[in-house]
C-alpha cells in the first residue's frame, strides 16, 4: 500500500539527451490503480519520460519517487520486480517459443541460474491467457503476425506480475480491432490492481480508456487531468499541443476526442 498520494511521482524533472533539454521541469504523478496516459506531439518528450521512469536514462535534475522513496535509492532488483517496461518497438532477437519468451518476464523473480518453478509457470500461463496468446505457446516468436508478436511481448511484461507497467505506444501498428482489444486488456489489468503508464498517440483511445492524462509540449507539462474536453483535453490545450482542432464524439457516458483539422 502506498501511504502518500502517488505510486510514482516526478518533481521538477529535467532530462537531457545529446546535450538537448528534452524534459523541462516536469512534475506529475500516477496514483495506484490508474491507467495514466502520456500524450503530446512527436518530440514532446513522452518516450523520454517513460525511459527515465524505467531507469534507462539519467535525470539531469529533479526527483523520481517510487512509493514515496527516491527511485535512485531503491534496489535495482526491487524496481525490476515491481516495474515492467515495454519499449516502443519491443523485439525478440532469437526465435524462442512464445512460452519461453513470456518466461523471460520472470527473470527478476528468479536467481541468475534458477529454473522457473511452479509459481513462475503459473504467472506465465496467466499472462498468456490474459493477452490471449495461450494457443501460440509453442510457436516460434519470429513466426507471428505483428499483432500476435506485440501481444506476446506484452505478456512477457505482465508475466513479472508488475505493480506498475510502463508501455510506450503499445497500440502502434495494430489494426482497430487489436487496438481496442489491447486497450480493453490494459483496462482489465488495471481493474485487477496493476497501474499502467501508457504513451499514446491516439486521442480517441486516450479519452475513452485513460483515467487521467498528462499532456506534454516541448518537454513541458501543458496539462494534467481527466481526459475530457472540460479538463486536460480541452480544444485550446489540444490546439496548443498538436496544432489541430478537434471534434468530440459522445456515446452515453463515454466520449472520444477526434482530431479534425490542422490549424
Amino acid at each position, binding site marked *: 500500500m502506498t501511504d502518500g498520494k502517488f505510486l510514482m511521482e516526478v518533481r521538477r524533472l529535467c532530462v537531457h539527451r545529446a546535450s538537448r533539454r528534452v524534459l523541462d521541469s516536469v512534475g506529475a504523478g500516477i496514483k495506484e490503480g490508474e491507467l495514466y496516459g502520456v500524450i503530446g506531439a512527436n518530440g514532446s518528450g513522452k518516450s523520454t519520460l517513460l*525511459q527515465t521512469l*524505467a*531507469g*534507462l536514462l539519467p535525470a539531469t535534475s529533479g526527483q523520481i519517487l517510487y512509493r514515496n522513496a527516491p527511485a535512485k535509492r531503491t534496489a*535495482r*532488483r526491487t*524496481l*525490476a*520486480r515491481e*516495474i*515492467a*517496461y*515495454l*519499449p516502443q518497438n*519491443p*523485439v*525478440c*532477437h*532469437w*526465435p*524462442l*517459443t512464445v512460452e*519461453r*519468451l513470456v518466461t*523471460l518476464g520472470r*527473470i*527478476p523473480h528468479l536467481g*541468475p*541460474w534458477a*529454473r522457473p518453478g511452479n509459481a513462475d509457470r503459473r504467472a506465465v500461463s496467466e499472462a498468456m491467457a490474459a493477452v490471449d496468446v495461450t494457443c501460440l505457446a509453442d510457436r516460434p516468436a*519470429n513466426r507471428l503476425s505483428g499483432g500476435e508478436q506485440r501481444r506476446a*511481448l506484452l505478456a*512477457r511484461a505482465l508475466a*513479472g506480475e508488475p505493480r506498475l507497467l510502463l508501455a510506450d505506444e503499445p497500440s502502434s501498428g495494430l489494426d482497430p480491432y487489436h487496438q481496442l482489444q489491447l486497450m480493453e486488456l490494459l483496462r482489465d489489468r488495471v481493474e485487477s490492481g496493476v497501474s499502467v503508464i501508457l504513451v499514446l498517440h491516439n486521442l480517441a483511445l486516450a479519452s475513452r480508456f485513460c483515467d487521467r492524462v498528462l499532456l506534454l509540449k516541448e518537454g513541458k507539462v501543458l496539462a494534467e487531468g481527466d481526459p475530457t474536453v472540460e479538463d486536460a483535453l480541452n480544444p485550446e490545450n489540444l490546439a496548443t499541443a498538436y496544432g489541430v482542432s478537434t471534434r468530440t464524439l459522445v456515446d452515453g457516458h463515454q466520449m472520444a476526442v477526434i482530431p479534425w483539422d490542422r490549424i
Partner: protein
Amino acid sequence: MTARRESLLLFGALTGLTGLVTLLSLGIGTVFLAPHEIVALFWADDDKLMGVALREIRLPRTLAALLVGGTLGLTGAALQGYTRNPLADSGLLGVNGGAALGAVLVLYTGAFAAIPFALPLGGLAGALVATALIVALSGRANIQTLILAGVAVSSLAAALTSLVLNFAPNPYAALEIVHWLLGSVANRSWDDVGLVLPFMAAGAVLLLLSGPGLRALTLGEDTAASLGFSMRKLRWLIIAGAALAVGPATALAGAIGFVGLVVPHLLRPLVGHDPARLLPASALGGAVLLTAADIVIRLLPADRDLKLGVITALIGAPFFLFLILKVRKEWT
C-alpha cells in the same frame, strides 16, 4: 519438465562425446593405444618410451585441442548472444588478431629461442594491447561501436602482421611465421598449456557469468536493463572475458577460425535458443569439434603435416555460405 530432460540429454551427450574424443586423441598415433592401455601407461611410473610419449606429447596436445576448442566455442556463443547476430564469432573483437600479431613479432625477432615461453607471452601481450585499443576506441557507446572498433583493430593487426611477414629476414623465418599462423596444437608442451590455462580459465568464468544477462538481452538492451541488468557490467564481462579467453587460445594454437561461428549455431536450436544455456553447451561442442578435427588430421595419410586451422577453415567456410543462404531465406 521436458525442457529439463532435453537439457540433461544434451549435456550428457556432449560430455560423453568429449570423453570419447579425448580417449581417441590420446590413443591415436604411430602406436594405437586402447583405453585400458592409456590408463595403465598414465599411472606407470617408468621411463618407457610409450609412457613418455603419452604423458609429454599426446596429453598436452589433447588438452590444448580441448581447451582451445572449448574457448573458441564459448567465446563465439557469448559474442553471438551479445551482438544478437548469428554470424558473429570469436574473432569479432580483433583480440585474436592482436594475439597473432604479438606471437608473430616474437617469431620475427627470434626472441622465442632466447626466452622461454616467449611465444605465448607475446600472444598474451598482443591480446591485451588489442583489448585496450578496442576499449579506448569504443568508449562507453553501444554495441555497434564496439563491433566497428573490433573490425578496425582486426584490420590493423592483420596489416601489421603482413608488414612483419614482408620484412621477414629470410624465407625460413617467413615460412615459420606462416606455419604458425595456420594454427596447430601439435608439439605443445605442458609449460605452454600451463602458462595460458589460468588466463583462459578466468576468461571462461567471466563469459559464463554473462549468461543471465545475455538471456535478458534477447529482448533488447532497454528491456534487459529494465529487468535489472547493468548493460555496462555485461559489456565488461564480455570484453574482458573474450580477451582473456581468446588471446591465450590464439597464443597457444595460432589462428583457428570458424569454430566459434559454427558450434554455437549448430547447438542453438538444441538449447531452445537460450543464449545462457548455449554458453556451456558451446564450450563442450567446441572442445569436441576441435579435438575431432585434430584426430582427423593425424589419421589422414599425408606426408606433410596438415594444419588444424586449415581443416577448420575447410569445414567452416562452406558452412558459413550455407548459413548465409539460410539467414537470407529466413529474412525474406
